Protein backbone atom coordinates (compact mmCIF):
# COMPACT_ATOMS: atom_id res chain seq x y z
CA UNK A 1 0.00 0.00 0.00
CA UNK A 2 2.82 2.37 0.80
CA UNK A 3 4.47 1.88 -2.54
CA UNK A 4 1.07 2.56 -4.03
CA UNK A 5 0.93 5.90 -2.21
CA UNK A 6 4.42 6.74 -3.35
CA UNK A 7 3.66 5.94 -6.93
CA UNK A 8 0.39 7.81 -6.77
CA UNK A 9 1.97 11.02 -5.61
CA UNK A 10 4.84 10.68 -8.03
CA UNK A 11 2.57 10.28 -11.03
CA UNK A 12 0.04 12.80 -9.79
CA UNK A 13 2.81 15.39 -9.53
CA UNK A 14 4.18 14.37 -12.93
CA UNK A 15 0.74 14.81 -14.47
CA UNK A 16 -0.07 18.11 -12.86
CA UNK A 17 3.36 19.70 -13.31
CA UNK A 18 3.66 18.68 -16.93
CA UNK A 19 0.13 19.94 -17.51
CA UNK A 20 1.23 23.27 -16.09
CA UNK A 21 4.16 23.24 -18.46
CA UNK A 22 1.81 22.50 -21.35
CA UNK A 23 -0.30 25.51 -20.55
CA UNK A 24 2.34 28.00 -19.54
CA UNK A 25 5.25 27.07 -21.79
CA UNK A 26 6.07 29.89 -24.18
CA UNK A 27 7.48 27.49 -26.70
CA UNK A 28 4.81 25.40 -28.39
CA UNK A 29 7.13 22.47 -29.01
CA UNK A 30 7.97 22.34 -25.34
CA UNK A 31 4.27 22.37 -24.63
CA UNK A 32 3.76 19.47 -27.02
CA UNK A 33 6.51 17.40 -25.41
CA UNK A 34 5.26 18.24 -21.95
CA UNK A 35 1.88 16.96 -23.09
CA UNK A 36 3.55 13.59 -23.57
CA UNK A 37 4.41 13.46 -19.89
CA UNK A 38 0.89 14.45 -18.99
CA UNK A 39 -0.48 11.61 -21.05
CA UNK A 40 2.09 9.30 -19.58
CA UNK A 41 1.18 10.34 -16.05
CA UNK A 42 -2.50 9.92 -16.73
CA UNK A 43 -1.80 6.45 -18.10
CA UNK A 44 0.08 5.64 -14.91
CA UNK A 45 -2.89 6.89 -12.88
CA UNK A 46 -5.08 4.54 -14.87
CA UNK A 47 -2.79 1.70 -13.92
CA UNK A 48 -3.12 2.70 -10.30
CA UNK A 49 -6.88 2.54 -10.81
CA UNK A 50 -6.70 -1.05 -12.12
CA UNK A 51 -7.44 0.05 -15.68
CA UNK A 52 -4.54 -1.60 -17.48
CA UNK A 53 -6.21 -1.87 -20.85
CA UNK A 54 -7.33 1.75 -20.90
CA UNK A 55 -3.86 2.79 -19.77
CA UNK A 56 -2.21 0.98 -22.64
CA UNK A 57 -4.78 2.33 -25.06
CA UNK A 58 -4.04 5.80 -23.73
CA UNK A 59 -0.36 5.26 -24.47
CA UNK A 60 -0.95 3.78 -27.89
CA UNK A 61 -3.50 6.30 -29.12
CA UNK A 62 -2.51 9.49 -27.35
CA UNK A 63 1.26 9.18 -27.25
CA UNK A 64 1.71 7.10 -30.38
CA UNK A 65 -0.97 8.72 -32.49
CA UNK A 66 -2.46 12.02 -31.43
CA UNK A 67 0.69 13.53 -30.04
CA UNK A 68 2.71 12.65 -33.11
CA UNK A 69 -0.03 14.25 -35.19
CA UNK A 70 0.03 17.36 -33.03
CA UNK A 71 3.79 17.66 -33.27
CA UNK A 72 3.54 17.22 -37.01
CA UNK A 73 0.93 19.95 -37.03
CA UNK A 74 3.21 22.22 -35.02
CA UNK A 75 6.16 21.57 -37.26
CA UNK A 76 4.17 22.09 -40.46
CA UNK A 77 2.52 25.32 -39.41
CA UNK A 78 5.29 27.17 -37.62
CA UNK A 79 8.44 28.67 -39.01
CA UNK A 80 10.44 25.53 -39.09
CA UNK A 81 14.14 26.11 -38.75
CA UNK A 82 14.16 28.31 -35.77
CA UNK A 83 13.93 27.47 -32.14
CA UNK A 84 11.81 30.55 -31.52
CA UNK A 85 8.34 29.11 -31.54
CA UNK A 86 6.60 31.39 -29.14
CA UNK A 87 2.87 31.53 -29.12
CA UNK A 88 0.82 34.51 -28.12
CA UNK A 89 -1.76 34.59 -25.42
CA UNK A 90 -4.99 36.48 -24.94
CA UNK A 91 -6.21 38.16 -21.78
CA UNK A 92 -3.94 36.01 -19.72
CA UNK A 93 -4.66 37.61 -16.38
CA UNK A 94 -8.49 37.59 -16.26
CA UNK A 95 -8.50 34.12 -17.80
CA UNK A 96 -6.13 32.80 -15.17
CA UNK A 97 -8.20 34.24 -12.39
CA UNK A 98 -11.34 32.84 -13.91
CA UNK A 99 -9.91 29.34 -14.27
CA UNK A 100 -8.41 29.45 -10.83
CA UNK A 101 -11.85 30.23 -9.43
CA UNK A 102 -13.31 27.42 -11.51
CA UNK A 103 -10.67 24.99 -10.27
CA UNK A 104 -11.35 26.08 -6.72
CA UNK A 105 -15.06 25.48 -7.12
CA UNK A 106 -14.50 22.09 -8.70
CA UNK A 107 -12.08 20.94 -6.04
CA UNK A 108 -14.39 22.22 -3.34
CA UNK A 109 -17.36 20.40 -4.83
CA UNK A 110 -15.38 17.22 -5.27
CA UNK A 111 -14.23 17.22 -1.70
CA UNK A 112 -17.51 18.06 -0.01
CA UNK A 113 -19.72 15.71 -1.99
CA UNK A 114 -20.46 12.34 -0.48
CA UNK A 115 -19.67 9.98 -3.31
CA UNK A 116 -20.72 6.75 -1.65
CA UNK A 117 -17.38 5.13 -2.29
CA UNK A 118 -17.21 1.37 -2.64
CA UNK A 119 -13.54 0.73 -1.93
CA UNK A 120 -13.14 -2.88 -2.99
CA UNK A 121 -13.70 -2.56 -6.70
CA UNK A 122 -10.46 -4.23 -7.69
CA UNK A 123 -10.29 -5.85 -11.08
CA UNK A 124 -8.02 -8.74 -11.68
CA UNK A 125 -8.02 -8.29 -15.42
CA UNK A 126 -10.11 -5.95 -17.47
CA UNK A 127 -9.30 -7.15 -20.96
CA UNK A 128 -11.75 -10.01 -20.98
CA UNK A 129 -14.52 -7.92 -19.44
CA UNK A 130 -13.99 -5.05 -21.84
CA UNK A 131 -13.93 -7.40 -24.79
CA UNK A 132 -17.12 -9.11 -23.69
CA UNK A 133 -18.91 -5.83 -23.09
CA UNK A 134 -17.73 -4.43 -26.42
CA UNK A 135 -19.38 -7.16 -28.44
CA UNK A 136 -22.49 -7.37 -26.33
CA UNK A 137 -23.94 -4.29 -24.69
CA UNK A 138 -21.67 -1.83 -26.44
CA UNK A 139 -21.90 -3.33 -29.89
CA UNK A 140 -23.80 -0.37 -31.32
CA UNK A 141 -21.44 2.31 -29.93
CA UNK A 142 -18.53 0.25 -31.19
CA UNK A 143 -19.97 0.02 -34.69
CA UNK A 144 -20.79 3.72 -34.65
CA UNK A 145 -17.27 4.50 -33.45
CA UNK A 146 -15.91 2.41 -36.29
CA UNK A 147 -17.99 4.31 -38.83
CA UNK A 148 -16.94 7.57 -37.20
CA UNK A 149 -13.28 6.69 -37.47
CA UNK A 150 -13.75 5.76 -41.11
CA UNK A 151 -15.53 9.04 -41.78
CA UNK A 152 -12.83 10.96 -39.95
CA UNK A 153 -10.13 9.18 -41.91
CA UNK A 154 -11.79 9.87 -45.25
CA UNK A 155 -12.47 13.44 -44.22
CA UNK A 156 -8.90 14.06 -43.15
CA UNK A 157 -7.55 12.51 -46.35
CA UNK A 158 -9.98 14.56 -48.45
CA UNK A 159 -8.95 17.78 -46.77
CA UNK A 160 -5.28 17.03 -46.99
CA UNK A 161 -5.64 16.02 -50.63
CA UNK A 162 -7.50 19.21 -51.44
CA UNK A 163 -4.74 21.19 -49.83
CA UNK A 164 -2.13 19.41 -51.87
CA UNK A 165 -3.94 19.84 -55.18
CA UNK A 166 -4.44 23.52 -54.40
CA UNK A 167 -0.79 24.04 -53.64
CA UNK A 168 0.14 22.17 -56.79
CA UNK A 169 -2.07 24.36 -58.94
CA UNK A 170 -0.54 27.50 -57.50
Amino acid sequence: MDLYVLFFYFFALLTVISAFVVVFARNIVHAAFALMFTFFGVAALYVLLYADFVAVTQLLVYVGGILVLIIFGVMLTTRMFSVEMKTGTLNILPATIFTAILAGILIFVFSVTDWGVVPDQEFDTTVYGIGTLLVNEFILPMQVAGVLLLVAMIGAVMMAARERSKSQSK
Partner: protein
Amino acid sequence: MVETLEQFLPHPLLALFIHAALPMVIVFPYVLFAVWLERKVSAHMQDRLGPMRTGGWHGWSQTIADMIKMIQKEDIVPSRSDKFLFKFAPFLAFMGSYAAFAVIPFSSEYIGAHLDVGAFYILAVTSIVTLSILMAGWASNNKWSLLGAMRTSAQIVSYEIPTVVAVLSVIVATGTLNLMTISEMQSGTIFNWLIFHSPFLFIAFVLYFISSLAEVNRTPFDLPESESELVGGFHTEYSGMRWGMFMLTEYADMFLVSLLGSVLFFGGWNSPFGDFMSGPIWGVFWMISKGMFFIFVMMWLRWTLPRLRVDQLMDVCWKYLIPFAFVNLVLVALWEMIF
Protein backbone atom coordinates in the same frame (compact mmCIF):
# COMPACT_ATOMS: atom_id res chain seq x y z
CA MET B 1 10.29 -13.40 -8.67
CA VAL B 2 10.02 -10.01 -7.02
CA GLU B 3 8.83 -11.74 -3.86
CA THR B 4 11.93 -13.91 -3.80
CA LEU B 5 14.13 -10.87 -4.11
CA GLU B 6 12.27 -9.04 -1.36
CA GLN B 7 13.21 -11.72 1.13
CA PHE B 8 16.92 -11.10 0.61
CA LEU B 9 16.97 -7.34 0.33
CA PRO B 10 16.51 -4.73 3.01
CA HIS B 11 13.97 -2.63 1.17
CA PRO B 12 11.17 -3.57 -1.26
CA LEU B 13 12.06 -0.64 -3.53
CA LEU B 14 15.54 -2.07 -3.94
CA ALA B 15 14.05 -5.39 -4.93
CA LEU B 16 11.92 -3.64 -7.50
CA PHE B 17 14.91 -1.84 -8.96
CA ILE B 18 16.97 -4.98 -9.22
CA HIS B 19 14.09 -6.80 -10.77
CA ALA B 20 13.64 -4.01 -13.27
CA ALA B 21 17.34 -3.85 -14.07
CA LEU B 22 17.65 -7.54 -14.93
CA PRO B 23 16.97 -7.15 -18.66
CA MET B 24 19.90 -4.70 -18.77
CA VAL B 25 22.13 -7.64 -17.97
CA ILE B 26 20.98 -9.14 -21.23
CA VAL B 27 20.56 -6.02 -23.32
CA PHE B 28 23.95 -4.33 -22.80
CA PRO B 29 26.18 -7.29 -23.61
CA TYR B 30 23.84 -8.11 -26.45
CA VAL B 31 24.33 -4.66 -27.99
CA LEU B 32 28.08 -4.94 -27.72
CA PHE B 33 27.91 -8.33 -29.33
CA ALA B 34 25.43 -7.27 -32.01
CA VAL B 35 27.53 -4.33 -33.15
CA TRP B 36 30.54 -6.61 -33.45
CA LEU B 37 28.43 -9.21 -35.21
CA GLU B 38 27.06 -6.68 -37.65
CA ARG B 39 30.56 -5.67 -38.64
CA LYS B 40 31.71 -9.23 -38.94
CA VAL B 41 28.66 -10.36 -40.89
CA SER B 42 28.86 -7.45 -43.30
CA ALA B 43 32.56 -8.02 -43.70
CA HIS B 44 32.16 -11.69 -44.48
CA MET B 45 29.36 -11.00 -46.90
CA GLN B 46 31.68 -8.66 -48.75
CA ASP B 47 34.42 -11.24 -48.64
CA ARG B 48 36.64 -9.47 -46.15
CA LEU B 49 37.45 -10.11 -42.53
CA GLY B 50 36.29 -7.06 -40.58
CA PRO B 51 37.86 -6.07 -37.24
CA MET B 52 40.54 -8.61 -36.43
CA ARG B 53 43.08 -7.01 -34.14
CA THR B 54 41.53 -5.67 -30.94
CA GLY B 55 41.33 -8.32 -28.28
CA GLY B 56 42.86 -11.19 -30.12
CA TRP B 57 40.35 -13.76 -31.34
CA HIS B 58 38.59 -12.16 -34.35
CA GLY B 59 38.69 -8.71 -32.79
CA TRP B 60 36.11 -9.60 -30.16
CA SER B 61 36.74 -6.55 -28.00
CA GLN B 62 36.46 -4.03 -30.83
CA THR B 63 33.08 -2.71 -29.68
CA ILE B 64 34.27 -2.44 -26.09
CA ALA B 65 37.10 -0.29 -27.26
CA ASP B 66 34.71 1.76 -29.38
CA MET B 67 32.47 2.25 -26.42
CA ILE B 68 35.29 3.49 -24.25
CA LYS B 69 36.28 5.86 -27.02
CA MET B 70 32.75 7.14 -27.28
CA ILE B 71 32.47 7.83 -23.56
CA GLN B 72 35.68 9.82 -23.68
CA LYS B 73 34.57 11.98 -26.61
CA GLU B 74 33.73 15.63 -26.23
CA ASP B 75 30.05 16.24 -25.57
CA ILE B 76 29.05 18.61 -28.38
CA VAL B 77 25.77 20.50 -28.14
CA PRO B 78 25.08 22.85 -31.10
CA SER B 79 24.83 26.42 -29.92
CA ARG B 80 21.48 27.26 -31.50
CA SER B 81 19.82 24.04 -30.51
CA ASP B 82 17.15 23.62 -27.89
CA LYS B 83 19.52 22.50 -25.18
CA PHE B 84 17.18 20.76 -22.82
CA LEU B 85 15.34 18.72 -25.42
CA PHE B 86 18.59 17.99 -27.23
CA LYS B 87 20.11 16.47 -24.15
CA PHE B 88 16.98 14.72 -23.07
CA ALA B 89 16.00 12.99 -26.34
CA PRO B 90 18.53 10.11 -26.28
CA PHE B 91 17.52 9.12 -22.78
CA LEU B 92 13.86 9.24 -23.66
CA ALA B 93 14.57 7.04 -26.68
CA PHE B 94 16.31 4.41 -24.62
CA MET B 95 13.62 4.66 -21.97
CA GLY B 96 10.89 3.87 -24.49
CA SER B 97 12.82 0.97 -25.84
CA TYR B 98 13.85 -0.44 -22.49
CA ALA B 99 10.38 -0.10 -21.00
CA ALA B 100 9.15 -2.57 -23.56
CA PHE B 101 11.52 -5.26 -22.28
CA ALA B 102 9.45 -5.34 -19.09
CA VAL B 103 6.88 -7.70 -20.55
CA ILE B 104 9.16 -9.96 -22.58
CA PRO B 105 9.09 -13.41 -20.96
CA PHE B 106 12.77 -14.38 -21.02
CA SER B 107 12.06 -17.70 -19.46
CA SER B 108 9.23 -19.52 -17.82
CA GLU B 109 10.37 -18.07 -14.51
CA TYR B 110 11.42 -14.55 -15.37
CA ILE B 111 9.26 -11.80 -16.81
CA GLY B 112 9.66 -8.18 -15.82
CA ALA B 113 5.99 -7.43 -15.37
CA HIS B 114 3.35 -10.10 -15.65
CA LEU B 115 0.90 -7.89 -17.53
CA ASP B 116 -2.36 -9.12 -18.94
CA VAL B 117 -2.02 -6.67 -21.81
CA GLY B 118 1.62 -7.46 -22.54
CA ALA B 119 1.55 -7.60 -26.33
CA PHE B 120 -0.47 -4.45 -26.48
CA TYR B 121 1.82 -2.75 -24.00
CA ILE B 122 4.89 -3.35 -26.15
CA LEU B 123 3.21 -1.79 -29.16
CA ALA B 124 2.13 1.18 -27.09
CA VAL B 125 5.30 1.91 -25.22
CA THR B 126 7.59 1.75 -28.23
CA SER B 127 5.77 4.76 -29.65
CA ILE B 128 7.73 6.83 -27.15
CA VAL B 129 10.74 6.18 -29.36
CA THR B 130 8.94 7.98 -32.19
CA LEU B 131 8.49 11.04 -30.03
CA SER B 132 12.07 11.02 -28.87
CA ILE B 133 13.20 10.94 -32.48
CA LEU B 134 10.99 13.89 -33.30
CA MET B 135 12.36 15.61 -30.24
CA ALA B 136 15.94 14.95 -31.26
CA GLY B 137 15.30 16.03 -34.84
CA TRP B 138 13.66 19.24 -33.87
CA ALA B 139 15.97 20.17 -31.04
CA SER B 140 19.04 19.83 -33.27
CA ASN B 141 17.83 22.85 -35.26
CA ASN B 142 19.17 21.32 -38.44
CA LYS B 143 17.11 20.70 -41.53
CA TRP B 144 18.60 17.27 -42.18
CA SER B 145 17.75 16.25 -38.67
CA LEU B 146 14.22 17.57 -38.86
CA LEU B 147 13.53 15.98 -42.24
CA GLY B 148 15.01 12.72 -41.03
CA ALA B 149 12.96 12.84 -37.87
CA MET B 150 9.73 13.53 -39.71
CA ARG B 151 10.43 10.76 -42.17
CA THR B 152 11.19 8.36 -39.36
CA SER B 153 8.10 9.13 -37.39
CA ALA B 154 5.87 9.04 -40.45
CA GLN B 155 7.39 5.68 -41.31
CA ILE B 156 7.09 4.25 -37.83
CA VAL B 157 3.53 5.46 -37.35
CA SER B 158 2.51 4.04 -40.72
CA TYR B 159 4.16 0.69 -40.21
CA GLU B 160 2.71 0.42 -36.75
CA ILE B 161 -0.64 -0.42 -38.35
CA PRO B 162 0.43 -3.63 -40.14
CA THR B 163 2.48 -4.60 -37.10
CA VAL B 164 -0.48 -4.19 -34.79
CA VAL B 165 -2.74 -6.10 -37.14
CA ALA B 166 -0.22 -8.91 -37.50
CA VAL B 167 0.12 -9.13 -33.73
CA LEU B 168 -3.66 -9.05 -33.50
CA SER B 169 -3.80 -12.14 -35.71
CA VAL B 170 -1.83 -14.02 -33.08
CA ILE B 171 -4.05 -12.63 -30.37
CA VAL B 172 -7.15 -13.71 -32.24
CA ALA B 173 -5.64 -17.18 -32.52
CA THR B 174 -4.59 -17.45 -28.89
CA GLY B 175 -7.29 -15.40 -27.21
CA THR B 176 -4.96 -13.64 -24.82
CA LEU B 177 -2.75 -10.56 -24.75
CA ASN B 178 -0.53 -12.03 -22.06
CA LEU B 179 2.84 -12.88 -23.58
CA MET B 180 3.59 -15.43 -20.87
CA THR B 181 0.36 -17.28 -21.59
CA ILE B 182 1.08 -17.14 -25.31
CA SER B 183 4.49 -18.70 -24.65
CA GLU B 184 3.03 -21.38 -22.44
CA MET B 185 0.46 -22.25 -25.09
CA GLN B 186 3.25 -23.12 -27.50
CA SER B 187 5.07 -25.52 -25.22
CA GLY B 188 5.84 -28.95 -26.54
CA THR B 189 7.60 -29.62 -29.77
CA ILE B 190 8.29 -27.31 -32.65
CA PHE B 191 4.90 -28.11 -34.18
CA ASN B 192 3.10 -26.41 -31.34
CA TRP B 193 4.61 -23.10 -32.34
CA LEU B 194 2.06 -20.66 -33.56
CA ILE B 195 3.71 -20.22 -36.91
CA PHE B 196 2.68 -23.76 -37.76
CA HIS B 197 -0.75 -23.22 -36.29
CA SER B 198 -2.40 -22.13 -39.51
CA PRO B 199 -1.26 -20.92 -42.93
CA PHE B 200 -2.62 -17.47 -42.18
CA LEU B 201 -0.49 -17.12 -39.08
CA PHE B 202 2.49 -17.85 -41.26
CA ILE B 203 1.41 -14.97 -43.50
CA ALA B 204 0.94 -12.89 -40.37
CA PHE B 205 4.51 -13.64 -39.40
CA VAL B 206 5.79 -12.53 -42.79
CA LEU B 207 3.80 -9.31 -42.49
CA TYR B 208 5.06 -8.84 -38.96
CA PHE B 209 8.65 -9.36 -39.95
CA ILE B 210 8.49 -6.93 -42.89
CA SER B 211 6.77 -4.20 -40.96
CA SER B 212 8.95 -4.65 -37.91
CA LEU B 213 11.97 -4.19 -40.17
CA ALA B 214 10.49 -0.86 -41.11
CA GLU B 215 9.69 -0.04 -37.51
CA VAL B 216 13.30 -0.39 -36.47
CA ASN B 217 14.54 1.36 -39.61
CA ARG B 218 16.53 -1.52 -41.00
CA THR B 219 17.33 -1.94 -44.67
CA PRO B 220 15.47 -1.91 -47.00
CA PHE B 221 13.48 0.61 -44.99
CA ASP B 222 16.38 2.64 -43.59
CA LEU B 223 15.50 5.89 -45.31
CA PRO B 224 15.43 7.97 -42.13
CA GLU B 225 19.16 7.54 -41.71
CA SER B 226 20.16 7.15 -45.29
CA GLU B 227 23.59 8.73 -45.24
CA SER B 228 23.56 9.55 -48.92
CA GLU B 229 20.38 11.61 -48.70
CA LEU B 230 20.08 13.03 -45.25
CA VAL B 231 23.64 13.03 -43.93
CA GLY B 232 22.69 11.07 -40.84
CA GLY B 233 19.00 11.59 -40.30
CA PHE B 234 17.81 12.75 -36.94
CA HIS B 235 21.11 12.08 -35.20
CA THR B 236 23.22 14.20 -37.54
CA GLU B 237 24.13 16.63 -34.78
CA TYR B 238 24.70 14.02 -32.13
CA SER B 239 28.08 12.74 -31.13
CA GLY B 240 29.79 10.90 -28.36
CA MET B 241 27.75 9.08 -25.79
CA ARG B 242 24.45 10.67 -26.84
CA TRP B 243 24.91 9.24 -30.29
CA GLY B 244 25.81 6.01 -28.58
CA MET B 245 22.50 6.07 -26.76
CA PHE B 246 20.69 6.27 -30.08
CA MET B 247 22.70 3.34 -31.41
CA LEU B 248 21.93 1.47 -28.23
CA THR B 249 18.24 2.18 -28.70
CA GLU B 250 18.34 1.06 -32.28
CA TYR B 251 19.98 -2.23 -31.47
CA ALA B 252 17.75 -2.73 -28.45
CA ASP B 253 14.74 -2.12 -30.67
CA MET B 254 15.97 -4.72 -33.14
CA PHE B 255 16.35 -7.14 -30.28
CA LEU B 256 12.92 -6.26 -29.01
CA VAL B 257 11.06 -6.92 -32.24
CA SER B 258 13.03 -10.13 -32.73
CA LEU B 259 12.14 -11.30 -29.25
CA LEU B 260 8.52 -10.33 -29.70
CA GLY B 261 8.47 -12.16 -33.01
CA SER B 262 9.88 -15.28 -31.42
CA VAL B 263 7.41 -15.09 -28.54
CA LEU B 264 4.45 -14.62 -30.84
CA PHE B 265 5.35 -17.05 -33.57
CA PHE B 266 8.31 -19.20 -32.56
CA GLY B 267 7.43 -20.48 -29.15
CA GLY B 268 9.29 -17.96 -27.01
CA TRP B 269 11.36 -19.73 -24.41
CA ASN B 270 10.14 -23.17 -25.45
CA SER B 271 12.62 -25.69 -26.66
CA PRO B 272 11.89 -27.00 -30.14
CA PHE B 273 12.50 -30.54 -28.94
CA GLY B 274 9.78 -30.86 -26.35
CA ASP B 275 11.17 -31.70 -22.93
CA PHE B 276 14.71 -32.03 -24.21
CA MET B 277 16.82 -29.01 -23.24
CA SER B 278 13.94 -27.22 -21.57
CA GLY B 279 13.72 -25.50 -18.26
CA PRO B 280 14.02 -21.94 -16.93
CA ILE B 281 17.71 -21.52 -17.78
CA TRP B 282 17.41 -23.22 -21.14
CA GLY B 283 14.45 -20.90 -21.68
CA VAL B 284 16.73 -17.88 -21.57
CA PHE B 285 19.06 -19.66 -23.96
CA TRP B 286 16.32 -20.45 -26.46
CA MET B 287 14.81 -17.01 -26.21
CA ILE B 288 18.09 -15.28 -26.93
CA SER B 289 19.08 -17.69 -29.68
CA LYS B 290 15.79 -17.17 -31.44
CA GLY B 291 16.19 -13.42 -31.09
CA MET B 292 19.76 -13.57 -32.38
CA PHE B 293 18.64 -15.63 -35.32
CA PHE B 294 16.24 -12.92 -36.45
CA ILE B 295 18.89 -10.29 -35.90
CA PHE B 296 21.19 -12.29 -38.13
CA VAL B 297 18.44 -12.38 -40.77
CA MET B 298 18.09 -8.61 -40.49
CA MET B 299 21.83 -8.14 -41.03
CA TRP B 300 21.73 -10.54 -43.90
CA LEU B 301 18.90 -8.55 -45.50
CA ARG B 302 20.80 -5.33 -44.99
CA TRP B 303 23.57 -6.49 -47.26
CA THR B 304 21.22 -8.12 -49.74
CA LEU B 305 18.46 -5.65 -50.53
CA PRO B 306 18.70 -2.11 -51.90
CA ARG B 307 16.97 0.77 -50.14
CA LEU B 308 13.45 1.82 -51.13
CA ARG B 309 12.48 5.26 -52.34
CA VAL B 310 10.32 7.27 -49.94
CA ASP B 311 7.11 7.02 -51.95
CA GLN B 312 7.70 3.31 -52.51
CA LEU B 313 8.08 2.96 -48.77
CA MET B 314 4.64 4.43 -48.15
CA ASP B 315 3.17 2.46 -51.05
CA VAL B 316 4.39 -0.79 -49.58
CA CYS B 317 2.78 0.04 -46.29
CA TRP B 318 -0.55 1.52 -47.29
CA LYS B 319 -1.29 -0.25 -50.52
CA TYR B 320 0.02 -3.73 -49.79
CA LEU B 321 0.83 -4.51 -46.17
CA ILE B 322 -2.23 -2.93 -44.56
CA PRO B 323 -4.86 -4.41 -46.89
CA PHE B 324 -3.15 -7.78 -46.76
CA ALA B 325 -2.88 -7.60 -43.01
CA PHE B 326 -6.56 -6.86 -42.60
CA VAL B 327 -7.67 -9.54 -45.02
CA ASN B 328 -5.32 -11.92 -43.27
CA LEU B 329 -6.76 -10.99 -39.90
CA VAL B 330 -10.24 -11.85 -41.13
CA LEU B 331 -8.96 -15.14 -42.52
CA VAL B 332 -7.23 -15.99 -39.25
CA ALA B 333 -10.46 -15.30 -37.42
CA LEU B 334 -12.40 -17.47 -39.88
CA TRP B 335 -9.84 -20.25 -39.51
CA GLU B 336 -10.18 -20.11 -35.75
CA MET B 337 -13.94 -20.11 -36.03
CA ILE B 338 -14.08 -23.08 -38.37
CA PHE B 339 -11.39 -25.29 -36.84
